[in-house]
């Protein structure tokens, strides 16, 4: 499974968001109504799933689905 597919699975497992509803370049807050606590929960699960040892605050600059994909590709 590639990073995008893994992320889509996490979005569904954590927030029940279907892959079809994700607009990759749009703000997660605006397009999917993801609030700050949901973002923290997503980030914690992403860190666990990808085995990352980084502070959760590192994700602060990621606004969209593609931002997260890009960030993960950079650090992995």
């Amino acid at each position, binding site marked *: 499974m590639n990073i995008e597919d893994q992320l889509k699975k996490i979005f569904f497992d*954590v*927030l*029940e*968001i279907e892959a079809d509803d994700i607009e990759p370049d749009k703000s997660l807050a605006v397009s999917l109504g993801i609030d700050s*606590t*949901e973002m*923290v*929960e997503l980030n*914690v699960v992403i*860190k666990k799933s990808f085995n990352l040892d980084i502070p*959760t605050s590192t994700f602060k600059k990621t606004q969209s689905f593609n931002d997260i994909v890009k960030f993960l590709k950079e650090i992995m």
Partner: protein
Amino acid sequence: MEKIAITGMGIVSPSGIDKRKFWSNVSHGRCAIEKITRFDASKYTSQVAGHVHELEAYSNVSSRLLKKIDVFSHMALVGTELALQDAQMNLEHEDLNRAGIFMGNAIGGWLFAETELRDLYIEGREGVSPFAASAWFPAAPQGQISIKYQMKGYSKTVVADRASSLMAIGYGAKTLVHNKANFIVAGGMEAPVTPYALLCCQTSGMLTQHNATPQEAYKPFDQDGDGYAIAEGAGIMIMEPEARAKKRGVKIYGNVIGYASTTDGVNRIDSAEDGVELARAIRLALEDAKLNPDQIDYVCLDGAGQKKADLSETRAIKAVFGANAKNIPMSAPKSVFGNMLGASGAVDVLTTLLAMEYKTVPPTINLKNPLAGCDLNYCANGSVSKEINNAMVISRGRGGINAVMVISK
């Protein structure tokens, strides 16, 4: 006080979620208290409780939101939806800046909290869901109702142990009297059937230990009563000034016409044995309602099922109603489904309104041998036909909290 109408009800209880099913079970005294099987309660001194079944069948809460809230908020949301529908409220035509929410809760959402605390100790800081911060605290259901329905008026959550929701309804009624809102969603919710919450309730020493016979465990005013059985649930109602309800042309179940509360100031757990402060609350509520004691047709009792509490409640009633006390039918219908703690007062109000509607006093069950000194008409032999024009609801909390409400048809 000005009449405040109750025009919608949402009941989530061990005796049923639909109000007709609830009333059928309660008026027939069909006990809903069961042995706790949701977790291993075998080491607890109290192992029985009233459980809500079929919550999902009545729920329109999204699975995404369900992951973020405790079950006590879920029950409050289901109850609110039922109450709004029942009151035929069209929120699109309402000024939601003048829609208030007054809720009562005693202990918060512990199923969510204790699950996350376990994760804290097993996985460390990052094992804890960030949703825990907004899921557990007693005002969480108020927030969820506000978000879901965009109600943004003057609102409060009252935490006063078992008297929480009766107080919340009382404050809600006063808020409407002072014209600070057009309508109010009021009531309470509680979800104490969890390992930690049960432990805390048990520590208070107020829970029954009749574990072998769950359906006969909760025995208000009986010699063998040793406390109440906890229960989960929610009681939600829509309140609005009577004139507004009449203008809307909707059904009015009844009106809140008087409310008062006092505090014993004696013990951090037990109510005062003399019942003097409860009697004062009853008098003040009657005064607020501009009624004499002989105008009350039914009293819905707190009925904690504990000797001292049952005796002091009886003493207070005798002090106010005098020789006529024995002629007034009274009962503790919560003996049927269990004590919903912070939600109990609200469910008692709804039960009383149904009693008015069906002209029937629901029974106190499991009362076979009355406690010495408890010699009132507790309707222990089953429901009693009775035209009820004015009724009183009594709710008490640990630390000597007394709340009393007067309701008229």
